């Protein structure tokens, strides 16, 4: 099940991890990657994980630290299942992969562009189940109205 939080309630705000680059660079870098993680990296960034924390992409050979923020976010979700990981910096390609994870706890601060995968189990704010694109749009329309997102600053 994918738990998606959209409200910074006091009971979860301390658990939300916004800075995915920092989390990955400080707590994931240097460790071995599982085959599943390597597959996720290949799916999102089209990067092949090499030895010695190197990756090979269309841009050439670089460090694992050069992975995109969206890709680092996906790995963080796998590595830290007890934390709530913000996906606000993820592109739709990264979100597509993340929503196919069996389990995840994520924070979504605004309506991301995505397609709800068939058969996925998304639960928003611990109460509202979303099973398709129409329900996803309806959820966000309601949430944006509630919090006055489109009032001019």
């Amino acid at each position: 099940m994918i738990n998606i939080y959209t409200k910074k309630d006091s009971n979860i705000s301390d658990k939300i991890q916004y800075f995915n680059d920092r989390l990955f660079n400080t707590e994931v870098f240097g460790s071995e990657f599982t085959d599943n993680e390597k597959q996720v990296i290949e799916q999102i960034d089209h990067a092949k994980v090499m030895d010695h924390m190197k990756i090979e992409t269309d841009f050439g050979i670089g460090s694992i630290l050069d992975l995109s923020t969206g890709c680092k976010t996906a790995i963080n979700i796998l590595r830290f299942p007890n934390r709530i990981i913000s996906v606000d910096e993820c592109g739709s390609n990264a979100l597509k992969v993340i929503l196919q994870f069996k389990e995840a706890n994520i924070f979504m601060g605004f309506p991301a562009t995505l397609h709800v995968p068939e058969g996925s189990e998304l639960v928003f704010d611990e109460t509202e189940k979303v099973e398709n694109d129409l329900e996803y749009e309806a959820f966000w329309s309601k949430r944006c109205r509630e919090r006055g997102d489109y009032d001019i600053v």
Partner: protein
Amino acid sequence: MILYKNLSVRAGTKMYQLEFKNRITIVMGDSGNGKTYLYKFLEEYRGTDGYEDIVLFNYKSDDFHKRLQGMRNKFIVIDNADIMLDDTDKQFINFHKENQFLLFKRDFTNLFINPNSLVTLKQDGNIIRFKEVL
């Protein structure tokens, strides 16, 4: 004010050739399409001939909000902008028209932008350019 109408940035074997049509440009798109890579190379160019007015911010920047408010006549690049900008920052971006902004972000709520402000990066061979989203 548009300070830079064009920017060329060599990034290893790739070349970014960027054309700016608006004071605010928001780079969106898939993860891994070269946004942070561009930021990294802009850091190398910052302060060199022709790139003197470029100021860069990302999640590592100290005193971001305070420093942003002090910017005048600058080309301001902000990576991680979805998690960096608060409403006061957005007001500054909207109303301080003497600055130009290049923002890497996906949520453009409360930013005054034109439809062609929203771009993604499109690679053609070794050349990477902006492609309008709308």
